[in-house]
């Protein structure tokens, strides 16, 4: 396991910039997820670390070595590809042994390492088979096994679960988490699935528009998003935003007033906030509750109801046109076109005109 340091990395494809001034420090043994929408540059960044894409500017260090000028095979990394990339004409054993043979590892050592990885991943009985004889989940295990046997300094996972069906994805995710604990290695996962990132990673790097938007632990990213993009991208259903004006409330804290004058008390001291021509109040569904009409902050009309069993998501339309999703009990009797009251019962977030988020100081 090794520390990974990315220093001011930039990349262009022809005239199109793909990554812009990316810097990141990953501790030895840390599991980091690159999370972002398609086209944000996360896979390109992973491929640059692997050596499959050249670096236009900046440096990559793995351990004590600068590796951005080294070929992929010389960087001490192993990668699990989205589509497995197993060699179809080789047996599973040969697939797993291929890298070790290239590294001139002794035959007995190769057999021992492959056997150990196969035992861990429970794929021993497939060793004489060809990849075409295996299911998607089994192939994914082999791809992981091929990475494990190399004992790399750094594991790279490029959307490894996206080709699996929902049930298998859940199982493989759990297995990946257990494997991580067992291997105690530095790992980078690229995904557009926030659940994967939240459940597997120590830290999440949220990327968009060629840049890192925020780096933090899963709960930091969720509870204290750096900007409106992160707040929207992380969390399902996404955070809703209401146009508000700010005035001073109790204890000097900012009070966010909706268009009809109803106000929400925030935990932010008004004095700590910068001046901004406009403000938005960010509300996650679990902070919004459905109550009887006239008893909440404002009244709203139910636009749609999603029953999820253990809870109900109620999509509300406010009188000023604003939209918001509230969470209700699984046994909720909310129905479309009903008029209900909206109560805010949980943390809210403030976003200035440039979409930057403002949070109360974190407790020390």
């Amino acid at each position, binding site marked *: 396991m090794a520390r990974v340091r990315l220093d001011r990395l930039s990349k262009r494809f022809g005239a199109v910039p793909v990554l812009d001034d990316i810097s990141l420090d990953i501790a030895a043994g840390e599991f980091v997820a690159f999370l972002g929408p398609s086209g944000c540059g996360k896979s390109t960044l992973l491929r640059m670390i*692997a*050596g*499959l894409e050249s670096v236009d500017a900046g440096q990559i260090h793995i351990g004590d070595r600068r590796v951005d000028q080294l*070929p*992929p*095979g*010389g960087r001490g*990394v*192993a*990668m699990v*590809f989205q*589509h497995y*990339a*197993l*060699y*179809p*004409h080789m047996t599973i054993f040969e697939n797993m042994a*291929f*890298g070790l043979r*290239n*590294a001139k590892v002794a035959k007995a050592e190769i057999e021992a390492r492959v056997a150990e990885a196969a035992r861990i991943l429970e794929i021993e009985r497939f060793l004489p088979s060809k990849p075409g004889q295996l299911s998607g989940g089994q192939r994914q295990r082999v791809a992981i096994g*091929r990475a494990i046997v*190399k004992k790399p300094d750094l594991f790279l996972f490029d959307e490894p679960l996206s080709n699996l069906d929902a049930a298998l994805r859940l199982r493989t995710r759990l297995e990946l988490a257990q494997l991580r604990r067992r291997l105690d290695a530095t790992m980078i996962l690229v995904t557009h699935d926030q659940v994967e990132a939240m459940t597997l990673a120590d830290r999440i790097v949220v990327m968009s528009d060629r840049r890192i938007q925020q780096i933090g632990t899963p709960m930091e990213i969720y509870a204290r998003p750096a900007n409106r993009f992160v707040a929207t991208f992380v969390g399902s259903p996404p955070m809703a935003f209401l146009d508000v004006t700010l005035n001073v409330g109790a204890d000097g804290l900012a009070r966010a007033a909706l268009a009809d004058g109803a106000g929400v008390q925030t935990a932010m001291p008004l004095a700590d906030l910068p001046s901004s021509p406009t403000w938005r109040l960010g509300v996650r569904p679990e902070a919004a509750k459905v109550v009887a009409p006239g008893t909440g902050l404002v009244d709203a009309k139910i636009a749609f109801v999603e029953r999820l069993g253990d809870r109900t998501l109620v999509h509300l339309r406010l009188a000023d046109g604003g939209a918001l999703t509230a969470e209700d009990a699984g046994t909720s009797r909310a129905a479309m076109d009903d008029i209900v009251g909206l109560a805010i019962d949980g943390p809210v977030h403030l976003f200035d005109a440039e979409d930057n988020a403002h949070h109360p100081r974190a407790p020390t």
Partner: protein
Amino acid sequence: MSGSAQPVGRSPWEARAGFAVMVVLALIMVLPLLWTLGLSLKANNELLRDTGSVFHGPYTLENYGSILRRAAVFRWLGNSLLVSLCTTLGVLTLSSLAGYGFARLEFPGRRWLFALVLFGLAVPEQSVIITRHQMFSALHLHNTYPGLFLPGLSAPFGVFLMTQYFKAIPVELDEAALLDGASRLRVFWSVLLPLTLPAQATLGIFTFLSSWNDYWWPLISATRSEMFTLTVGVASSQINFAQTSGLGFLMAQAVFASAPILAVYVVFQKYIVRAVSGAAVR
């Protein structure tokens, strides 16, 4: 699929009628071959009187015996085999390397060079034959084995086929192998080339057949009898028809010349069918 399976939407009578038509067409196709085979099994003096005697005995292997007693025929057979094998190996090697290069490597002018190769498909052999003849003459390559097989190595179709096949292989396999510490050569040799075997088989078979059947260039390049290929040698016997040992002997030579090709068809018919149905490039 079992032999009794009916195509969807067709009645049994339609299927039977279709089968009968196919049988008739197959007989029409095979009739000249049977005719040749029949004539080759008849005595020459009998055929001089009436070729209709092919439909009844007696039959004889005397014509084949005559071939085996002629040393030149074996020389021509050997020449054909050598030239066809050299052409096939050369085309497979060059087409694979060029196909890999065009499909996987980035270099200046790649697209223009590939377009130039494709343009070669549109150039008829007849238009370059005089120039080629002069060039080979100047290089003293006529009446040599390289002179017979070198022109066949220019195979734009082979380059095109292999390029398309390499392009169809996911580039992630190259990347996985590079991450596994393989060199470019090892990626090509150990990972990609084995995956192109169906295309190699198709290209190899067609190149071999085409080279074996080639008549025009060996006719120009090989002027000495000992350098004739089988096609030219057999034809030279037919041109001197009046001096030949007769029709039965000529037909036996034709069967003898076709036998290796028929063997290739029989052994590799799976690949040939896949190739002509377009399955090989998928």
